[in-house]
């Protein structure tokens, strides 16, 4: 495992830098392929969104640096970006991938899009064969971690962009948005975004009034709505339950006297004004009228902020989950490491050897010490000769990203159990276990003895 992660995100780099490193979707497969083909890289993938560009790789050796690839791929002098780059290795890289997938590193913590984006990046890299074994496991685990965070914490239970806060408030007023109508005054981008959210949550009809009638028509068509000439605004807007204003008007468009009239026309049915224009389009005095609720951009922003504060606690919970998962994943990769497999393979055969000697000892009768040693040497010799090739193959495999497949295969062939693995990790951690270079002879008899005892009990 030699994970390396290099990237820029919304926190470390301004958009001018991020766009220089961003890779358009169309070029992503090619980029992944080239990343994986880079001499120092075993596997690699690239996450490129509007808020982040990250290169994640499983390196062939400890000396490789992803910067080489970036320099070659973009043909840029990386020095100018150096202050914006962040780099993580091993456990830190694992943690970062988990955090990104769980949306803990997002601009809006908990927003759900990032998980989809990471999944897409993974699928792209996988499709071109750039992600195969360990990186594959890392990402698969990251998706599971993201799911855990979503299920076990309230992070992302309600997202916090302005548009979704508007939806939440509307639901607080109207209960369900089913069948409610939305009236856009002005055809700005934010207006459109809020309308999209409201419609996605069940709002039934849409009206658009704009000073430039053409734009009203265009926006209305997008949502299957109805365009209305600006001069008819006050004759028609009593039909709307939710009014979103975003015009460039320097004065208030909606004043309290309009509000009174609207309430009379609507038989006091509540009405929600979302004013995202600066300067404002709706007189805040309208909020005082019964049944009218007026929120301007600052009110919405404030609602967003109070959400963020609530979420801090949940985010802490999520971080704890991520930390636990990093440890677990680390341990899992260790079990897949080649050392424990060699050790348990040796132990397995040693048990067989011992058992066979015990079985025939009775028939051999009393043996001299020399004879005992000869039998010992004979059996050991056979075992070692047979073991030689598989063990060297395993050692070579350890340097290859496909190693997990080979290791799995060996484990399955010799029926090496996970229990053993876990015990071995423990011994490995305590530092008493043999190194990969250890020869079969050096495997300590106490370990084999313990194992055979346990086998006997089973």
């Amino acid at each position, binding site marked *: 495992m030699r994970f390396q992660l290099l990237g820029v995100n919304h926190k470390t780099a301004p958009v001018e830098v991020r766009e220089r490193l961003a890779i358009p979707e169309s070029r992503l497969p090619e980029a992944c392929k080239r990343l994986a083909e880079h001499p120092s890289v075993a596997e690699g993938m690239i996450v490129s969104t509007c808020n982040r560009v990250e290169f994640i790789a499983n390196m062939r050796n400890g000396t490789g640096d992803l910067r080489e690839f970036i320099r070659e791929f973009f043909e840029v002098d990386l020095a100018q970006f150096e202050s914006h780059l962040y780099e993580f290795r091993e456990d830190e890289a694992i943690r970062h991938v988990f955090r990104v997938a769980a949306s803990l590193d997002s601009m809006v913590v908990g927003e759900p899009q990032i998980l989809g984006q990471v999944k897409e990046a993974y699928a792209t890299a996988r499709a071109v064969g750039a992600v195969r074994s360990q990186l594959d496991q890392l990402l698969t685990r990251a998706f599971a971690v993201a799911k855990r965070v979503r299920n076990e914490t309230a992070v992302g239970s309600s997202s916090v962009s302005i548009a979704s806060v508007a939806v939440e408030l509307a639901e607080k007023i109207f209960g369900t948005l089913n069948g409610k109508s939305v009236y856009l005054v002005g055809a700005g981008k934010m207006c459109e975004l809020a309308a999209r959210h409201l419609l996605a949550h069940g709002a039934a009809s849409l009206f658009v009034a704009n000073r430039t009638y053409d734009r009203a028509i265009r926006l209305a068509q997008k949502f299957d709505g109805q365009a209305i000439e600006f001069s008819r605004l006050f004759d028609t807007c009593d039909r709307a339950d939710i009014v979103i204003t975003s015009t460039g008007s320097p004065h208030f468009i909606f004043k309290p006297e309009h509000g009174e009239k609207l309430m009379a026309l609507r038989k006091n049915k509540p009405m929600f004004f979302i004013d995202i224009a600066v300067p404002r389009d709706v007189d805040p005095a309208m*909020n005082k009228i019964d049944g009218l609720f007026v929120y301007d951009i600052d009110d919405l922003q404030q609602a967003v902020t109070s959400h963020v504060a609530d979420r801090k606690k949940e985010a802490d919970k999520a971080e704890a989950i991520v930390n636990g998962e990093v440890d677990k994943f680390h341990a899992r990769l260790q079990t897949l490491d080649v050392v424990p497999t060699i050790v348990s393979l040796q132990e397995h055969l040693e048990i067989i050897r011992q058992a066979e000697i015990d079985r025939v000892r009775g028939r051999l009768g009393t043996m001299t010490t020399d004879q005992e040693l000869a039998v010992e040497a004979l059996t050991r010799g056979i075992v070692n000769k047979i073991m030689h090739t598989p063990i060297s193959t395993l050692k070579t495999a350890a340097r290859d990203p496909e190693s997990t497949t080979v290791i799995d295969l060996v484990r399955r062939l010799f029926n090496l159990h996970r229990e053993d693995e876990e015990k071995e990790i423990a011994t490995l951690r305590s530092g008493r276990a043999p190194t990969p270079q250890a020869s079969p002879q050096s495997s300590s008899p106490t370990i084999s003895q313990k194992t055979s005892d346990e086998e006997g009990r089973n």
Partner: protein
Amino acid sequence: MMTLFWLRVALVCYAVGLLYALVALTRASEILSKVALHASYLGMVFHLVSLTEAVVQTGQLASASVHNAESLLAFLIMVCFMIAYLVYKTTTPGIVIFPLVFLLTFVAASGQQPLVFSSVAAKHGWLAVHILMIFTGYAALFLSFGASILYLLQERALKSKSASGMFSRLPALQVIDDIGYKSLMLGFPFMTLGLIAGSVVAETTYGRIDYLDPKILLSVLMWAVYLLMVFTRLNAGWRGRRAALLASAAFATAIVAWIANYFSGMHRFIAS
């Protein structure tokens, strides 16, 4: 008396509901809300047992309901609350309902002196109709009143733009409004029919109706306020502050009319 015993068991159950109402004012608790709900179910069962036993004991629906007026009213309010819960999946009206139910049950359970009333009136089927109808009307009115209080709270929270504390857990404004509106509309026919049945009882019992009797006057006044509420709601869509004011007025007259029981010569059904 077993009736009283079961009623007291029910009272204990409602006390849990009351606790919920008090705690809910400061902070929400999912568990407590569930416990309160189950305690209320249980309380209603005991309550029903108590009421049934009262009917069996006296053998007459009418006299049983007069004896257990507060108890019956509390039960009917709980029924309304439960219907609202089943439809809207919210227990928040309980904040207003539970204290009221507890109070009524408490009054009933602390043991009341049986009213003596003429056998003529008691045998009258109209009396039972009168009591059941009026009480259902009362219960609906109380629920509507509770809803309009919640509406005011929620409206204020939304307008002040500080959706925090208990307000963030109130149901949506329109849902509260719907509860208030539906219970108002449902209660009105009951109240009207109840009053008609009452006047039939009075006429057949006394041969005439004393329109200056405080009970009669207040009952008619309450009905008028109720009518006004329905009217403004249907025509002008009054809700929120104005509806809450009207509901409070109706509620107040209802209470005064209730108290008037003790001053009304006519309503005591005393054999003269």
